[in-house]
């Protein structure tokens, strides 16, 4: 958990994004301090995922700046692959490479991108697999793993590049209910160890447990940024409270 005093690792400043005439993001701003975990909530279609994808340049922003570790990422189009090496991402549908085993999935980027030897990459991968409690499934292929196991391997794969920040795009939305907690536990542990994280999720239990700050988005706008305590002890914001009531039934 962060003290909140350190300068931001990531600062998103008034970014805009449109697809054709549809405005997906409207002047969104957000600051993430080192070691901080921020959970982004909001109705579907509110631009949460697009915001995450803009950060690691999977989407180009139309206007605004993204400052990461002192650099403006919106000017790094030529070196986008270098930027992405420092930003881990976990997807809703896991997207493990289907032709590689769990351990090979984790080894691929260190070997091909960072030039780590096969031997060292394997050692690193096994350490990470232990961390996500899947050491004994190292040689299994993605289609032999449950959804929860696949997502944990995907987290280990992202960690293998030693990212400065982790982006989670609805990491448990595609999972059966009984597998949600095994993934959230791993994420919460990482957050507790000080991994800077940005999480788009509907899991309010996780938000309550692991988040330092909650960001509420609606219709492409960042409506509200509050500390976790403020938010869960009854946010005063009308729309956010209505949303919270809806998803908590």
């Amino acid at each position, binding site marked *: 958990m962060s003290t909140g005093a350190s300068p931001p690792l990531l600062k998103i400043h008034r970014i805009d994004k449109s697809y054709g005439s549809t405005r997906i993001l409207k002047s969104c701003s957000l600051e993430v301090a080192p070691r901080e975990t921020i959970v982004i909530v909001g109705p579907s279609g509110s631009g949460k995922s697009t915001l995450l994808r803009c950060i*690691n340049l*999977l989407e180009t922003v139309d206007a605004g700046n993204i400052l990461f570790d002192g650099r403006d990422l919106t000017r790094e189009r030529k070196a986008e*692959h*270098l*930027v*992405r*090496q*420092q*930003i*881990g*991402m976990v*997807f809703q*549908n896991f*997207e*493990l*490479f*289907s*032709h590689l*085993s769990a351990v090979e999935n984790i080894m*691929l*980027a260190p070997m*091909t*991108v960072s030039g780590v030897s096969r031997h060292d990459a394997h050692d690193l991968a096994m350490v990470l697999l232990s961390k996500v409690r899947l050491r004994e499934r190292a*040689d299994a*292929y993605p*289609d*032999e793993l449950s959804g929860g196991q696949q997502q944990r391997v995907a987290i280990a*794969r*992202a960690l293998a*590049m030693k990212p400065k920040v982790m982006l989670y795009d609805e990491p448990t939305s595609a999972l059966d209910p009984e597998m949600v907690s095994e993934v959230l536990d791993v994420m919460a542990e990482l957050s507790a160890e000080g991994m800077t994280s940005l999480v788009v999720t509907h899991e309010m239990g996780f938000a309550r447990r692991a988040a330092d700050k909650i960001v509420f988005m609606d219709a492409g706008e960042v409506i509200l940024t509050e500390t976790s305590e403020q938010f869960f002890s009854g946010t005063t914001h009308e729309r956010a409270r209505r949303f919270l009531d809806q998803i908590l039934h």
Partner: protein
Amino acid sequence: MSLHLLLEYLTSKDFLRGAALTLLLTVVSLGFGMLIGLVLALLQGTRSRVAKTFTFFYLWLFRGTPVLFQIIFIYNVLPSFGIRFSAFVCAVLALSLNEGAFMSEIFRSGLHAVKQGQRTAGFALGMTRAKVFRHIVVPQALRVVLPPIGNQMIGMLKLSALVSVIAVQELLLVADQAASANFRYLEALSAAGIYYLALTTLFMVLQGWMERSLDSKRKSSTRRMSFAERLLGTSQPLVR
């Protein structure tokens, strides 16, 4: 039927040379055809209108006319424009250009079978486009395109007999010439047929071996296969 004559044909230098030329024609044309097909498939994936128009025209032309027509056209019409090639080069040229059109469709389906999310996951790890293509797209697409490429290999072997019309001394022409000397068609054609079947069998075994080597690391899905299964190419892993 004289077994003695059949054996004589099978071991004769002419037949052996004819079979070798058939194999060479097949392998070389297949190689160039795959190269052309890959380029066409990649061109179709681009946003360029010129590239798309070009590939459309290419496919329309080469899939829309008989191979035999293409062979005769290249052999007889190109020289009138001052472009002179040997019969063998003309044969390879025609077969490769034709094969490229079909290969491009196979490669396109292979590239299409790799989901966009797999590429995105590679990019998100900091891989460049080239690395994503080399380490993610190609290995996954290969699994999809190998069975139809096996089909094309065997198809090409048989297609190569067509170039006998421009007097390339391939297997069928050799057999035909041998028979026309003594009218022993049964023996001569049987000898050619045996060579064709032997080459086809070789290709089938090769395809089965390639498919299995791609899957070799997957212990769980590897099962013992009978020889017949390998020959028939029914080596798809069981759906788990």
